[in-house]
């Protein structure tokens, strides 16, 4: 699915990703854990195509194709989806207007016809219901005045509607109450399939009880310093990152 090779990224002359390697196979759920500031969000932004970063070296291959030269909308159409750590509020842009624009833009990219309004409404209402998103929220401007947890659920709603191939969830669990965590995890699990992969960034083992990963990677100072199975997350929860900080140095 995705193969990241020797990725070196700087921002304002400061090195954030320092030769990062990571492979996520088709259908795999990979978790990344790592200390604050180790570069997890940076990695997700670089894969999604945010501009502020300077990529000095390396490749990001999506099904064999290097996506680093693509604009963010092209990457989205190719199947990349990032659930933001901090979803943005967009005043004046209605949630439904936005969802429709996003779904149709991707369909156009792929040469598919635009959705009929009734079909669109049905899809949104079904997905929203499963995630406990009220009709009232859908009527408001995108994320404006939403609580932290509501914003995270809205990210998952978008993911469910856009049906991406490679999904990055950047701390989707932070800000969620216990029930919402379960709802969101169920939403993600429902999307698991042999041709869809996930990169789940989290600080807490708790999420991984619900979304059970195939692999767990530890990131420190801009590199993956240890990879293992789901038991690695338990070990980190018990011992912290002390052993790994030094590995990256």
């Amino acid at each position: 699915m995705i193969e990241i090779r020797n990725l070196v990224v700087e921002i304002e002359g400061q090195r954030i990703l320092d030769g990062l390697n990571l492979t996520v196979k088709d259908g795999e759920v990979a978790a990344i854990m790592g200390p604050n500031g180790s570069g997890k969000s940076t990695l997700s932004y670089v894969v999604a195509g945010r501009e502020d970063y300077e990529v000095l070296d390396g490749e990001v291959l999506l099904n064999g194709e290097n996506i680093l030269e693509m604009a963010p909308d092209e990457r989205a159409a190719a199947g990349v989806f990032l659930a933001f750590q901090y979803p943005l509020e967009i005043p004046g842009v209605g949630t439904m207007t936005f969802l429709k624009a996003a779904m149709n833009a991707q369909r156009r990219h792929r040469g598919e016809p635009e959705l009929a309004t009734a079909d669109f409404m049905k899809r949104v209402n079904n997905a929203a219901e499963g995630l406990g998103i009220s009709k009232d929220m859908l009527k408001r401007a995108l994320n404006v005045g939403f609580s932290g947890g509501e914003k995270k659920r809205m990210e998952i709603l978008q993911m469910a509607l856009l049906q991406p191939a490679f999904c990055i969830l950047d701390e989707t669990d932070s800000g969620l109450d216990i029930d919402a965590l379960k709802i969101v995890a169920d939403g993600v699990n429902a999307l698991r399939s042999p041709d869809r992969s996930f990169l789940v960034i989290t600080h807490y083992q708790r999420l991984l009880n619900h979304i059970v990963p195939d692999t767990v990677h530890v990131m420190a100072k801009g590199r993956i310093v240890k990879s293992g199975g789901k038991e690695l997350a338990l070990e980190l929860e018990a011992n912290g990152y002390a052993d790994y900080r030094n590995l990256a140095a």
Partner: protein
Amino acid sequence: MAIVTPMKTPAETSLEGAFARLRDTLPGAAAERRAAFARYAERGLPHRRVEEWKYTDLRAALRDAAPLAERPAAVPAGAPDLGAPRFLIANGHVLSAPASLPAGVTAVSLREALTAGHPALSALGDPLAAGNAAVELNTAFMTDGIILTVESGVTVTEPLHLAFVNEGSQPFATAARVLVMVGGGASVTLLETHQGPAGVAYQPNTMVEIVAGDGARVDHARLNGEGDAAIVLSSLSLRLGRETELTSVNGVFGAALSRHQVFATFAGESAKASINGLALLSRTQHADSTLVVDHAEPGGESRELFRTVVDDEAAGVFQGKIIVRQKAQKTDGRMMSGALLLGEASAMYNKPELEIFADDVACAHGATCGALDEDLLFYLMARGLPKPEAEALLLQAFVGEVVETVSNEAMREVLTGRIESWLKARAAR
């Protein structure tokens, strides 16, 4: 001591010649016109060293003053149908009025009123605008227009449409004047649309005066859809009685250069006014919104919201002055101007001002100016929207907030349609 006589520009010389030729043939008594022209002539055409015209140098822009247009023989096309009784004012002359007017509404042409006399004429002219070149020139040259009267206590359910249409293949000038007298407790919606030919440097100068009685409700919306080479002056005078509520929204799309001036006087206690505007500018367009809001009586509430989108080498100007007189305690005034600059050479000049002489007031103003938010753009693009579409969505939201303040649905649709075509044209470039 040397006496400095400033050189007259060709436009100023033309204006003088035109006035000398026309003053006795234009309708009504010449005395008022002469006085107005004299007030204009004291300083001539305003230029950038005149404080209120600092960002809109009319003297430089008006290379010559075009001749005043005659009454067109045929009815020009192009005025939008807003599904409302419509007055058609072509090149400054009234061509048609609705066959029937809503109950409680009367209308007479300004030409007729000036020729035969009319009681409302004494209300013509706004002291707050005295000495303003655009206003004085309109008074000196006004050819025709409408005097609309809404009887006290009448709720006019149908909006009234003032459709200004310009036509001609050579430069021409117009000077139309409208006076709307809204009786106490009456309620009315006024829609103003302005259009004209592309590629012709015509020069409309219109003035609309709304005198609203105690407890009246007025909704006013205006569309500047003038031709792309026009040099457009427009003035709006608002005089509000006690507990009057008024909204005025101006949408600017057309003209090479436009200046829309609003003079609002809170002449009665506890009046409320929202004066809003949006502008979408491209190429080398220049659009100026200048407001003077004069709180003369206590308890008034004024709100101004302006949104300007500037692309290419265009320039926007917002000048807003809130005056709170000593007597006008408990005034609540809030003025906000925001601009988005899309081109590297795009410019916006914001000048909000407060002049407060009372001590118990709440007044605030703010001005913002910047590029589209990169983070928002990235968020939208990361969901698959191509950049032009993502930008269009954000721009639409930005000016949409002003469109929402237009109460009339037909007018909202016209404005929304104009915004959409502007955004489409931009995306296609």
